[in-house]
């Protein structure tokens, strides 16, 4: 699959084949990470986080690829692994082949924002399954509210909508309770 095909697939929502194609890069990245002090488990974690960042980037129609997609993926992995090493108070030189050296700005990586997302991940594991399902169907699968209302046995589209916003309200409230300093306005 060419880079452009992978990007087109991600943008059209057919992520699975794209992820599968990108996954062929994992063994190389894994050995890079293990070589510089990581293990298989952290390598997989870093790689999966990189895939998420890459897919988020690529999904933006304004994104333009300036290198090979695999090189970019290596760059994100290297960045995240360096970040992780810094967290462990280590900063070895990472000499990876065929990689971009990306800075946080170039990557649009914001530590504060990532922390908030981590917090929200915890929150999301506390909301009801029904809420999770609505969120996933609506925001991730981009399904129509009519379809969702039918699938989840809501009496009407409106009650499904109301439920969705109540779930959202509840989740944001939970996040604020967990850490009152988090999730305040960034301005």
């Amino acid at each position, binding site marked *: 699959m060419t880079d452009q095909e992978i990007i087109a697939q991600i943008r059209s929502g057919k992520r699975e084949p794209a992820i599968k194609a990108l996954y062929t890069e994992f063994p190389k990245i894994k050995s890079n990470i293990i070589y510089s002090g990581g293990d298989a488990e952290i390598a997989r974690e870093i790689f999966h986080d990189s895939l998420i960042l890459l897919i988020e980037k690529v999904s933006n129609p304004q994104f333009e690829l300036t290198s090979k997609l695999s090189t970019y993926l290596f760059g994100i992995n290297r960045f995240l692994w360096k970040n992780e090493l810094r967290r462990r108070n280590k900063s070895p030189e990472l000499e990876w082949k065929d990689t971009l050296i990306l800075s946080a700005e170039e990557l649009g990586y914001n530590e504060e924002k990532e922390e908030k997302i981590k917090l929200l991940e915890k929150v999301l594991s506390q909301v009801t*399954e029904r809420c999770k399902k609505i969120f996933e169907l609506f925001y991730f699968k981009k399904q129509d509210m009519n379809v969702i209302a039918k699938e989840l046995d809501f009496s009407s589209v409106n009650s499904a909508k109301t439920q969705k916003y109540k779930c959202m309200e509840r989740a944001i409230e939970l996040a604020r309770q967990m850490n009152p300093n988090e999730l305040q306005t960034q301005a």
Partner: protein
Amino acid sequence: MRADLHTMEQIDLYLQGKLNGAELDQFKNNLATNPELQSMVNDQQLLIQTVNRKALLAEINMVAGIGGAAWYANPWVGMGGAALVIGGIVAAVYFSSDNDPEINQQTEIITQNFDSTLVEDTIVEDGTTYFVMEDGERIVPDIPQNKHLVSGSGNEDNDLSNQLYNADETSQNTDETDEQTGHVTSTPDEVKTNNPENVISKNRIASFPKGDAALKSFIDENMRFPGTAKEKKISGNVKVTFLVNPEGTRSNIEATCFTMRDENDKPMNSTQMVLNQKIANLFEREAERVVRIMPVWIPATDSQGNAVLSTQELYFNFSLKTGNTVYRLD
């Protein structure tokens, strides 16, 4: 809809780029002057991003879970093959390694649960394991039959695993061991993959968070009896196989409805089963749904304590008389 919910809807539309014209201008004006609205937009945007990341991670895990195996159009079904191959590996790894007393203990409890809820006894004839149901009917579970169908003391199992390991190599004592124990050895032919990601360890098997009691209450709360089946007074048993990823998410969920009972509570024969295929599908879909919406599982771990991929099987009993029940075998 309450006013604040309406605001959230506005934010949703704004974030999706679906506001336009005067509405968009007005919203932007509000946004510029109202810090509370800014904060709400930020929160909502982050929440949506988190939802998407979680779902994306589940998709990635699914791809990672099957490694180099064949790709199927529908990820929720049709992965039985991969699960079976991995099931074979589970057996191979289990039998070829020393036993862990903790696991024996755990599985013993589960087996007892299973016995008391559905299966009266387990018998072995001609190398096949049958479950004898409450009414004396025999069922051959079409699963990789290998582990823990009969509970026993840790020591026995330990000897056993050695015996079976030897039997695997020599193919001579297999029948004898099977009759004694109810274990059925898996043939090495089933192990067809060489992907190291798929090797599953004995050290801790995957489990539902907070144990089997929590699993039962989760089923009580979340599993619904399909409406059409209720009208026709049909009940059924469903087996669900799935993978528990190292992150505790589930993938390759596949359900098979293997028995059904008619309105007189009589087991259906194969023709009736075919005629009621739609009902069987309802049971299967509901069982798959429940597995899909479960909270994050505690993954299996290898000897170093690292989380690894593993297979799981759950049996669901949709019954109008006794309510829905669940049990695990492995």
